[in-house]
Structure formats: C-alpha cells, structure tokens
C-alpha cells in the first residue's frame, strides 16, 4: 500500500510540474465547452430561396408573400430566368429554387389545376428534405386557402397536429449538446493522458528502472490510473457545475449522485482503453496515432452529433461497442430527463463489462519481463 502512495505522489508531481500540459488538460476543455455548443445548432432556419416568376400574376404574388411571411425562408433572388436562379445554387447563395411557370393563374381558373417546380440543392440531404417539406406545407396551405376563398363550404376535412415537446419545450440545442460535448472532452483528457504517459516512460527508459524494483504490476498500473481518474472527475465537475451551470444554465434534473456513479465507472473503462493503447505501443508517436484513430471513432460513432438509428446495421454494432455512446446517452438522460437508476440499469451493466474487459486485457498485456 505504501509503495502505491509513493507512486501517486510521483505521478501527481510530474503532472503539476508541466505547466503546458496542465493548461492543455484544464483550460482547453473549459474553453471548448464554452464555445463549441454554440456552434452545434442543427435547426434549419433561414433557408435561402430564389423564386423564378414567369407568371407575374396575382396568385403568384400572393404565394410569394405567403412564403416570405412564413418565417422559414429568406428570399435572396426574385427573377424571371431559371438560369439565374440555378447559378445561385451553384454559388451556394441559395438552397432552393421555386419556379412559377407562365400561365399558373389562368391554368388554375380554366383547368382547375396548375403546377409548380421546386429544385433543391441536396448536397446536404437533411437540409434539402426539411426545406422541401416546409415549402410543400406552405404551398398546400396556400392551395387550401385559395380554394376556400373561391368556393366556401366544400373544401374537405383536415387533420391538424398538436405538438408537445417534453423535457426541452423551447427546443434549446445547447441543453442537448453541452452534456454530450463534455463527455468527449473528459474522454480525451483521461484517455490520451494515460495512453501517452506509460509509453513516455517506455521511450525514455525509466520503465526499465521500475521493472527491476519489487513494485507489483497492479500497483504500478494503479499508480498510473488513479491520477488521471481524479483529473477526469475534476474536469467533469468543472464542466458540469461551472461552465454548464453558469454559461448555459444547465442544472441536472436527475440525481447528481447517479451521474457521478456512472462517471466513476466510465472513467475506469476509458482509462482501461488508454492503458491498452499504451501496452501495444513502443513510442509516443505510435500511442498517439492509435489514440487519434480510436478517438475519431469514439466521437463520430457515438451518436453525439448524428443519430445511431439511421446508421446501417453493421455501423450500429460499432456504436454499441463504443463506451462513449453509453455515457453520452446516460448524460442526456440524467441531466435532461431525470432518468433514474432503473432506467439505465442496462447502461451500467454494459459499462461495467467494458471496464472489466479493457483493464484485464491491458494488465495481461503489460509485461514486466520479456
């Protein structure tokens, strides 16, 4: 036990002795947590629209007014030439083009039907879908209105939709993003630091000296893990109860105790990953490349930014094998929905499994002798 004390003392000294590293692991997460959530806004608003009006009729004019007053669209160009509007799409100045053909009004009156053409810049598929959907709804509504005006009485039955948004009635994106981004930052601090730290001792040669001492393997590893575990908890606390609370006004709805319980378990699993990386690397360069690779997958396959359900089946399996996935979910559930232990039992069991497998694997793979 007392050898562990000396190991811990040494590790903490080395961490605090290097101001650059200390700054990186404390200030960088805080700054990123302050700034990044502001950038993470999926909401599709201010869709730019160019309208090609070849009809110049009253109906066309009314329709354009309807679109402009809907609040979803910004009219960037009103023209009579489709080519002009299309070049707006090419130059990214507009997202959607509505073409009103010559004779819309007269067709509607004479033949009781007319047509409109919409072209959407679909490079970003979601934006294209949403833009198209908004425009369709506005035009359908407009259609019902002119019908009602001309022919009151018979305009068919309609179904309305009443939406209630639970847990986040104002649809605030930051409430959703801050907990998730915090998870990634804590993961990076704890994971990188462990992975790089042991390899550094290998590269510099001090690990040889440690290996000829009677230090027990488990003590040495604990001596490496505990400081970064503490650091992880500290960064998390700083993020959750200083940045998230003061800047974003986020107060966890659920139990703080439960949140920390999960954090404690999660950190053990992530430190295990770092340890595993370091046992497979001989140089810091290798450890770094490996952790970079893992971290990219951890972040992008965690459902932090994109939905896991819409991934192909095989990719969902990768997401299921990613510890970050579970903590991101648990954070959002506890913080925003007030989920309790019974709701996240599955998450606890899986994380305990990760923690066990990664650490045992790493300890087996770490050899004092060759």
């Amino acid at each position, binding site marked *: 036990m007392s050898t562990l004390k000396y190991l811990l003392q040494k590790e903490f000294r080395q961490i605090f*002795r290097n101001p650059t590293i200390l700054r990186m692991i404390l200030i960088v997460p805080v700054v990123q947590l302050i700034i990044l959530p502001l950038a993470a806004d999926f909401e599709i608003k201010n869709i730019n629209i160019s309208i090609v009006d070849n009809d110049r009729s009253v109906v066309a004019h009314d329709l354009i007014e309807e679109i402009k007053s809907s609040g979803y669209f910004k009219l960037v160009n009103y023209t009579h030439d489709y080519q002009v509007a299309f070049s707006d799409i090419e130059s990214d100045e507009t997202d959607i083009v509505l073409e009103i053909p010559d004779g819309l009004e007269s067709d509607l009156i004479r033949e009781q039907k007319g047509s409109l053409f919409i072209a959407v810049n679909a490079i970003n598929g979601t934006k294209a879908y949403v833009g198209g959907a908004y425009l369709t709804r506005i035009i359908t509504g407009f259609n019902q209105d002119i019908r009602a005006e001309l022919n009151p009485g018979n305009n068919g039955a309609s179904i309305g939709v009443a939406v209630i948004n639970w847990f986040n009635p104002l649809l605030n994106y930051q409430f959703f993003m801050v907990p998730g981004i915090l998870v990634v930052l804590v993961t990076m601090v704890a994971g990188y630091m462990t992975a790089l730290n042991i390899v550094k001792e290998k590269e510099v040669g001090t690990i040889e000296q440690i290996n000829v001492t*009677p230090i027990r393997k488990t003590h040495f590893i604990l001596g490496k893990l505990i400081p970064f575990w503490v650091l992880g908890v500290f960064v998390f606390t700083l993020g959750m109860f200083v940045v998230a609370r003061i800047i974003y006004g986020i107060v966890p709805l659920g139990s703080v105790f439960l949140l920390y319980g999960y954090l404690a378990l999660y950190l053990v699993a992530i430190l295990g990953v770092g340890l595993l990386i370091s046992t497979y690397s001989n140089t810091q360069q290798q450890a770094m490349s490996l952790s970079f690779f893992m971290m990219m997958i951890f972040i992008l396959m965690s459902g932090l930014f994109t939905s896991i359900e819409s991934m192909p089946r095989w990719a969902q399996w990768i997401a299921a094998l990613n510890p970050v996935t579970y903590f991101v979910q648990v954070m959002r559930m506890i913080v925003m929905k007030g989920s309790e232990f019974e709701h996240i039992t599955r998450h606890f069991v899986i994380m305990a499994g990760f923690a066990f497998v990664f650490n045992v694997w790493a300890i087996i793979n770490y050899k004092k*002798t*060759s």
Partner: protein
Amino acid sequence: MNSQKMISTRDLTKTFGDFVAVNNITFDVRQGEIFGFLGANGAGKTTAMRMLCGLSIPTSGEATIAGYDVYKETEKIKQNIGYMSQKFSLYEDLTVAENIRFFGGIYGLKNGEIKARSRELINALDLNDQKDLLVGSLPLGWKQKLAFSVAIFHHPKLVFLDEPTGGVDPVTRRQFWDMINQASEDGITIFVTTHYMDEAEYCDRISMMVDGYIRALDSPAQLKKQYNAESMDEVFYELARGAKRTE
C-alpha cells in the same frame, strides 16, 4: 561468508528465434566481489544482465541470484538487487530529492529511514545546493553518480551497473569508481559492464564474452599472464578479434 555465491549460473541460455544471444554461460560471483562483465558490442552482455535482473526469462539453464531462482522468484530477486541502466533512468522532471524519495518509497523503506539516508546521500554527493533542482538540469556526471547512489539506496546485496561511466569525464570516472569501491567495502556485491579497460583493472575478477559465450574468466593479473599481455587492452583485443558478431 566469503564463499557465499551471490550469482550462480549453469548453462544459462537465451535465444531469440534462431539467434542465440547468450550461449550456455556458467559462472559464479562471490559475495563482496567486484565482478567485471566484459565483451564487445553485441556479445550478449546486456541480454545476460537482463536475465540476471529478472527482466527477461531465460530460454534454458539455471541461475540463482542471492539464492533466488531466476524463473520462479523474480520478485524476491528484485527486493535484493539494485540496477543502473545504460540509458539514464531517473525521472528528469522530478527534483533530486523527489527522485530519492520516490525510489526509496517503492523499495518499501520507512519514512524516517528515507529522510536520514537522503540527508546522508546528499551530503556525500555534495548536492545540498542542488537538491531541489530538476534532475534534467544536472550535468551528466552528477546524474550518473546520483543514479548509482539511488540504485544502492535501499542497501541491496547486489547491484548491476550497465556501462555506468559512458560519456563521463576521467575525473568523474575516478570518483565514480571510488563510490563503487566504497559500496563494495560496505558489503555490496558489484556486477559491472564496461568498455574502459582501465576500469577492468579495478575489478576483482572479470569475464570476457564473445559471440554469446564466456571465453575467459579470471582476475585481471591472471588473465594478463595467461595471454602474455602487458595490459587488459591487449587481452581484450586478443579475445574479441575472433568475434563474428558485431553490432
């Protein structure tokens, strides 16, 4: 006591695939001896030494260190030995005092003991003004002397020194050997590798490794007589000339 064997090996062998790094070496080191372990680069010295320290498991043969078996009792061996590697192995980002305290601590010394011995050590090395400096900022000679002191800080029975004086000036080298002699007088057995033949003269006995074998083993005086040589340099040259392996 003098007859007690600190190191005893019988046909100790280590192979890496087809390559026989250490080939059936058999020798004993008595307690209190200064034993020089010589050989050209690539002769297998470091591999042999790593086996004796418990860092590497032998392929075959037997060896005991301070009475403990190198296969089964590596952790007991580690309690009883000190080690100073070729690569400088103190923490450069810890101070002199912190390094001493750390290594004392992991050998399980009591707090009071660590304090008393540190004071003694710092006085002996005349490092009082430098004890709070980072080790990384010390000149190489001082680092090496400090590394040696740390290696014997827990009073091991036996200490392994792997080319401890590489890159050090002659005066420091002289002082370093004074420290080795002092440790030997205190009853610590010394096992040292070196490329300096004047240092070989300071040893009680030396062995010469060539291509994984021990080719000669005796006191410096006997060896010179045996090879009809004026100096250890000539002995070394005579033996190493036939080597097929070089690094």
